[in-house]
C-alpha cells in the first residue's frame, strides 16, 4: 500500500527544532572537555587521593592522581563531542559516547571534590550503599506513580500519601507499642500501608468517580495529609511523651553478605529496603507479564478501546490507584520506622515529588523509575558526603547548600542531555466515562 498516513500514530510527534538536542549536548561536552584539560587539570592539587572500599582502619582501596583522571574524563568528553560531527560511519558511536560521558559526570564530581578537599580519601562502596538506602522511598514512590499513571490517573499526591503513612503508622506504634516492641512495629508498618491505601482511595474517588481535575485532587491530598499528620503529631504523638524508639533492624543476606570487603556493606540492610526490591520486581512482573497488567496499561493508553473489549476501566483504575497507595504507605513507614524512629511535621520533605521526577526520568517503566530513584538517592548521599569532606576552592569553603544542590544540577544535565524525550501514557490525566 502506498499510503503513509497513520491513524493512531501517537508516538511520532513531529519535532521541528533548529539545533537538535544531540548537537547541543555534544557542544556542551566539547566545551567541558576543553575546560577540564586546559583549565581544571593544571589548577588542582597533584597530590594523590584515594577511594576506599571499606571503613578504616587499613581499608582496601585504590589511589589515584586527580589531574590524570580529570584529563581522562576531559578526553572522553571531547571524543563524544567530536563523534557528533564525524562522518556517518563513525557517528553511530556518538550516542553511546554521550551516554558514557553523562555517566562519567558522577566520578568527575567525586574526583574533583576529593581533590579540592582536605581529606585524602573517602569510602565509595559505603557511598553507593547510602545511595541505595536513600533511594528506597523514591523507588517506592515512583512505583506508586507508575501504577497510577499507567492506569490513566496522574498522582501528584504521592507526597501526601507517604506522609500520611509515615504519621499514622508511627502514631499507632507510639500509642499501642510505646515505640518499643517489634511485634507492634510490624503491625504499625501494616497500618502505614493501609493508611496509604486509604488516602489513595480518596484520590481515586475524587478523580474517577467525580472527575475532579487530577492535579487539583493531588494537591488537595497533599494539603490534607500535611494538616492531618500535623494535628495527629501535636495532639497524639507528642502527648505520649515518647521521643525515642526501636525501629526495624538490619540483617544480612545469607552468603552474599559473606563476600569479603563489599559483602558486609552492600548486602546488609533493613526490611523495608529489601521490600523495595521485591516491590519493583513484582511491579515489573505483574504490569508487563500478566493479563491484569496488560489491562492496566491499556486503560492508561486508550480506555475507550479497552472498554470495547469488555475491560472494566473504572474498576481497573480504582485497583491500580489503591495498589499504588499501599506502596506509598510502605514508603511512609520507611521514614518514621526504618530511617528514623520518630515522626516530624513534613517528614517526607518532597520525596514524593522527587519520586515523580524519577518516574518521568525512567520513562514510565519500573526499571527506569528504579534507575531514576537510584540517581536521585545518589545525589542526596553525595550532597551529604561533600559537606563532610569540606570542599574548598581557592581557599573559600563552598557553602553546604550549594554542595547539596550540585548533584541535582548534574542530574538535570543527565536527564536533559542523555535520556531524552519521555512520553507519558497517552490517556494519563483524562477522566473516563462509561458509554450509556
Amino acid at each position, binding site marked *: *500500500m*502506498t*499510503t*503513509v*498516513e*497513520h*491513524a*493512531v*500514530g*501517537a*508516538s*511520532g510527534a*513531529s519535532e*521541528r527544532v533548529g539545533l537538535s538536542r544531540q548537537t547541543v549536548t555534544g557542544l556542551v561536552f566539547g566545551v567541558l572537555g576543553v575546560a577540564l584539560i586546559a583549565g581544571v587539570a593544571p589548577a588542582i592539587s597533584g597530590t594523590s587521593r584515594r577511594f576506599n572500599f571499606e571503613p578504616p582502619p587499613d581499608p582496601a582501596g585504590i589511589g589515584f592522581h586527580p589531574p590524570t583522571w580529570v584529563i581522562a574524563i576531559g578526553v572522553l568528553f571531547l571524543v563524544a563531542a567530536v563523534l557528533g560531527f564525524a562522518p556517518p560511519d563513525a557517528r553511530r558511536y556518538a550516542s553511546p559516547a554521550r551516554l558514557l560521558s553523562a555517566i562519567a559526570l558522577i566520578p568527575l564530581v567525586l574526583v574533583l571534590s576529593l581533590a579540592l578537599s582536605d581529606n585524602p580519601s573517602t569510602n565509595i562502596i559505603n557511598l553507593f550503599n547510602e545511595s541505595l538506602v536513600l533511594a528506597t522511598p523514591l523507588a517506592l514512590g515512583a512505583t506508586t506513580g507508575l501504577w497510577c499513571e499507567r492506569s490513566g490517573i496522574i498522582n501528584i499526591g504521592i507526597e501526601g500519601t507517604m506522609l500520611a503513612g509515615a504519621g499514622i503508622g508511627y502514631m499507632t506504634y507510639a500509642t499501642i507499642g510505646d515505640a518499643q516492641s517489634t511485634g507492634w512495629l510490624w503491625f504499625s508498618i501494616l497500618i502505614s500501608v493501609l493508611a496509604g491505601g486509604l488516602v489513595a482511595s480518596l484520590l481515586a474517588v475524587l478523580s474517577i468517580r467525580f472527575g475532579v481535575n487530577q492535579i487539583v485532587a493531588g494537591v488537595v491530598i497533599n494539603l490534607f495529609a500535611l494538616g492531618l499528620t500535623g494535628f495527629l503529631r501535636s495532639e497524639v504523638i507528642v502527648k505520649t511523651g515518647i521521643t525515642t524508639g526501636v525501629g526495624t533492624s538490619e540483617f544480612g543476606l545469607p552468603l552474599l553478605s559473606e563476600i569479603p570487603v563489599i559483602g558486609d556493606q552492600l548486602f546488609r540492610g533493613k526490611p523495608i529496603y529489601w521490600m523495595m526490591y521485591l516491590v519493583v520486581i513484582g511491579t515489573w*512482573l505483574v504490569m508487563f*507479564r*500478566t*493479563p491484569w497488567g*496488560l*489491562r492496566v*496499561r*491499556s486503560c492508561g*493508553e*486508550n480506555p*475507550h*478501546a*479497552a*472498554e*470495547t*473489549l*469488555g*475491560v*472494566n476501566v473504572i474498576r481497573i483504575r480504582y485497583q491500580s490507584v489503591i495498589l499504588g497507595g499501599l506502596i506509598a504507605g510502605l514508603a511512609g513507614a520507611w521514614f518514621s520506622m526504618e530511617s528514623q524512629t520518630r515522626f516530624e511535621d513534613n517528614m517526607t520533605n518532597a520525596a514524593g515529588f522527587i519520586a515523580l521526577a524519577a518516574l518521568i526520568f525512567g520513562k514510565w517503566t519500573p526499571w527506569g523509575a528504579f534507575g531514576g530513584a537510584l540517581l536521585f538517592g545518589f545525589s542526596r548521599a553525595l550532597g551529604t558526603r561533600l559537606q563532610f569532606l569540606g570542599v574548598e576552592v581557592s581557599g573559600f569553603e563552598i557553602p553546604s547548600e550549594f554542595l547539596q544542590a550540585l548533584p541535582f544540577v548534574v542530574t538535570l544535565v543527565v536527564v536533559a542531555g542523555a535520556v531524552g524525550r519521555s512520553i507519558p501514557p*497517552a490517556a494519563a490525566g483524562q477522566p473516563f466515562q462509561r*458509554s*450509556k
Partner: protein
Amino acid sequence: MAQASGGTVLEVEGITKAFPGVVANDDVSLTLNQGEIHCLLGENGAGKSTLVNMVFGLYRPDQGTIKVRGEEVHFEDSGDAIARGIGMVHQHFQLIPVFTVAENIILGNEVTKGAFLDLDTARRQIDALAERYGLAVDPDATVGELSVGEQQRVELVKALFRDADILILDEPTAVLTPGEVDDFFGVVESLTGQGKSIIFITHKLREVLAVADRITVLRSGRVVGTTTAEGATQQSLANLMVGRDVVFRVDKAEADPGAPVVRVQGLRSQDDRGVETVTGLDVEVRAGEIFGIAGVEGNGQRELVETICGMRPATGGRVEMLGQETTHWTPRKIHELGVAHVPENRSKHGVVAQYTVADNLVLNRYHHRQFSQRGVRNAAAINAEAEELVEQFDVRTPGVDATIDTLSGGNQQKVIVARELTGDLKALIVAQPTRGLDVGSIEFIHRKIIELRDQGVAVLLVSAELDEIMSLSDRIGVLYRGRLAGTVDAADATREELGLLMATGSAEGQS
C-alpha cells in the same frame, strides 16, 4: 457474492434510543441472516452507529429487544456482546498505538500460562487466523507504526480472535485508498464464504451495490426501507437516504476559461519530517475553470495546498497569483488578494472548536472595519453577518452563538465553506471539501463550487475521491510523488486511465 445460506442470526426488534434532545433510533427493526452482508445505509446522524453500538453492548436501548440466534439478550457491556459472538470494527479504530499487534488482539481475552501472559501461543493463534482469512498481520509489530489498512486488518483479527461470527463494520472503507478498498472487499467475501455474517455500515452507494446482499436504509433514526441489492440503483438508494430526489450527476455548463490566475512553477516543499514531498511541480489554473488534483494520499497533496496558501515554506520554485509572486507571503496577505482556502483538516485548520459559529464565520475577516472598531469586536455586526450566512448556506445549528464543536461534521464544513466563499474571490483552493459528509451536504457544496467557477473564479480542487474529481473538474492532473504525472481533460478521462496514473505515475503502466 456469498449467498445467504443459513437462518437468522440476529434480530433487532422495535429498538428505540433517545439521547438528550434527539431520538437517535425510533422503532428500528433489522434482521441478519447467516452468511449475508447486510448494508446499513444512511446519512451522518441517521442513527446507524447508535444502532450498532446497542447491538455491541456499548449503549443500552430504551425500548425493544435484541435476539442473537433466537435468544433474547440484554448486554451490560461489550464483554457480554463479545461472549455472544459479536465483533465490531469501529470507524475510529479502537487500538492502542504503543502496544504490539499481539497485545492489542489479546487484550481482554488474554492467553495465559499459569498467572502469566502466553504471547507465544497468542502469536501462533494469530498467525493461524491470519492465514485462514487472508489477513496478513505481524503479531510483533507496534500498531502505531502500521498503515491504516494494516490497522484495519488488526481490528478484524481482533474480532475473529474472539470467535465472532457476527461482524459489525462501521464505515470500514472511509479511511482506505481505492486499492485498499478492493482488497478489503476480497477479505469481506472470504469471511462470509466461511459462514460469518456481516453488518456493513456506509454512506457510499457504489460500495453498497458492490458488496451487499440486503440493504436497510435509515433516515432520522427510522428505517425507511429494506431491499435486496438486485433492483436497487444508486439513484433509488440516494433518494431513500435523503428523502427527496437527489441530483446525482453534477450539472454544469461548459467551462469558459479565461486568463491564468494561479501559476505554480517548479514548486518544492517538505513535510513535517523534512522529507521533500512536493518535488518540482508545475500547474496553472485559469479563471472560470476547476482544476482537479487526483492522487493516492501521501503524494504531496497536503504540502502542495499548504505551500500555495502560505502555511508552509516553499523550498524551491515559485507561486504566482493574479500576476504577483506570492511564494513567501503570509496566509493573510494571500487571502486579502482574493484567494480562499478550504483546508483538508477541518478541526485543525478549518475551525476553532471552542469558538461560536458566529466567530468561526468571520475568522478571516474579524479584523475588518465592519466587524471591529479600535480593536473591539462588534458583536452585533458579527452576529448579523453570521445569521445571514447560516441562512444562505443552510447550516443546521441551534444558533449562531452555539460553539462549533456541537455541530455535526457536515455542518462544520458548511460553516467553513460559507466563510471562505464569501467576499470578492478570484481563486479558491479546496482540499477534500466533502470528506465524511453525507449525500445532501456533498450535493450542496458541489453546487457552490460550480457556481463560483461560473462567476469566473479559478478553482484548484484536491480530493481523494475520484468520483468527486471526475464529476467536478474541467481538467484533471494526477499527482504522483510530488509532481503532476499527467494532465487530462475531464471530458475524456476514464477511471481506468486515472487509476493507472495514480498507481504508477504513467499512463502506460509500470514506469
